[in-house]
């Protein structure tokens, strides 16, 4: 049985789940680090890299999605906060807002960006820029989808834990939040790199 799921470990000063999620996020930094590294390598070696005004990406759409993800970070952290207040109904309300905003992000990404690009023949094979664009945003999009699945689980079947061990449930919401904010940070860097530089 996993120990220190609620109380902090005497050595690390944090509960096991939090240490685990931070180690996972460290590995995620390496994953996205490889993508950013590839981007730099491909870009400095390519004299024909498109200028951001004519690379075919819509800055207003990218900016809108940035606001959506930042907003979802606020609702996620509020879900954890009201969980600490022992208000599970409000917690579920904020988690639902987070899932809705995450879904909105993906809908905009797919229907207003991916599909029009693919219809115009601007797929990953069109140019190095679009190969990097689809790889980076696709990987990020999969993380958003993963977040939707996890948060939905805690609204649905995972919420049974609240009845038996509310502190454990609150800690799980905090860990989910840490992952979600990391996904937000990745987008904060992807947006200027792909849309504005």
């Amino acid at each position, binding site marked *: 049985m996993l120990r220190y799921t609620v109380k902090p470990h005497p050595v690390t000063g944090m509960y096991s789940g939090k240490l685990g999620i931070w180690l996972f996020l*460290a590995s995620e930094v390496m994953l996205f680090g490889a993508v950013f590294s590839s981007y730099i390598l491909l870009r400095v070696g390519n004299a024909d890299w498109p200028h951001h005004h004519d690379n075919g990406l819509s800055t207003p759409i990218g900016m809108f999605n940035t606001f959506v993800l930042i907003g979802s970070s606020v609702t996620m952290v509020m879900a954890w906060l009201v969980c600490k207040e022992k208000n599970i109904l409000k917690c579920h309300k904020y988690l639902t807002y987070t899932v809705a905003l995450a879904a909105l992000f993906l809908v905009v990404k797919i229907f207003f960006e991916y599909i029009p690009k693919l219809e115009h023949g601007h797929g990953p094979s069109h140019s190095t820029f679009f190969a990097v664009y689809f790889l980076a945003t696709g990987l990020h999009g999969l993380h958003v989808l993963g977040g939707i699945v996890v948060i939905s689980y805690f609204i649905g079947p995972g919420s049974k834990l609240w009845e038996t061990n509310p502190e454990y449930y609150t800690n799980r919401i905090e860990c989910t939040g840490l992952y979600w904010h990391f996904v937000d940070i990745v987008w904060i860097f992807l947006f200027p790199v792909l849309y504005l530089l």
Partner: protein
Amino acid sequence: MDAASPHEIRHHFVRYMKVFGTLAVMTVLTVAVSYLSVPVAVGVALAMVIALFKGTLVGAYFMHLAQERKALFSILILCVVLFFALLLLPVLTTHEMAKDPYHYPIRSAPATAASA
């Protein structure tokens, strides 16, 4: 884990909304900077400084790093060091490319064909 009081919730909510407002303003600022007529290097530097500031805000307030235990920072410092190593090593180790990045792919293509 201590339960949060309604007053504490209200206090945190106001703080999170202020962070949200700052992040929104910074996002608009990032877009505005991209329209400035500045050299590419300056534009990249400005955009990355703003992105770093936004990332720090999310980390400090939403991920509670401002109140986190010191043990966690050893993981994060190692992570940051490895991240920058990962970011820079491929560029630095590609010696020919570092000398003449713009012509590197053009020169290397015929050489590969000849050796084959």
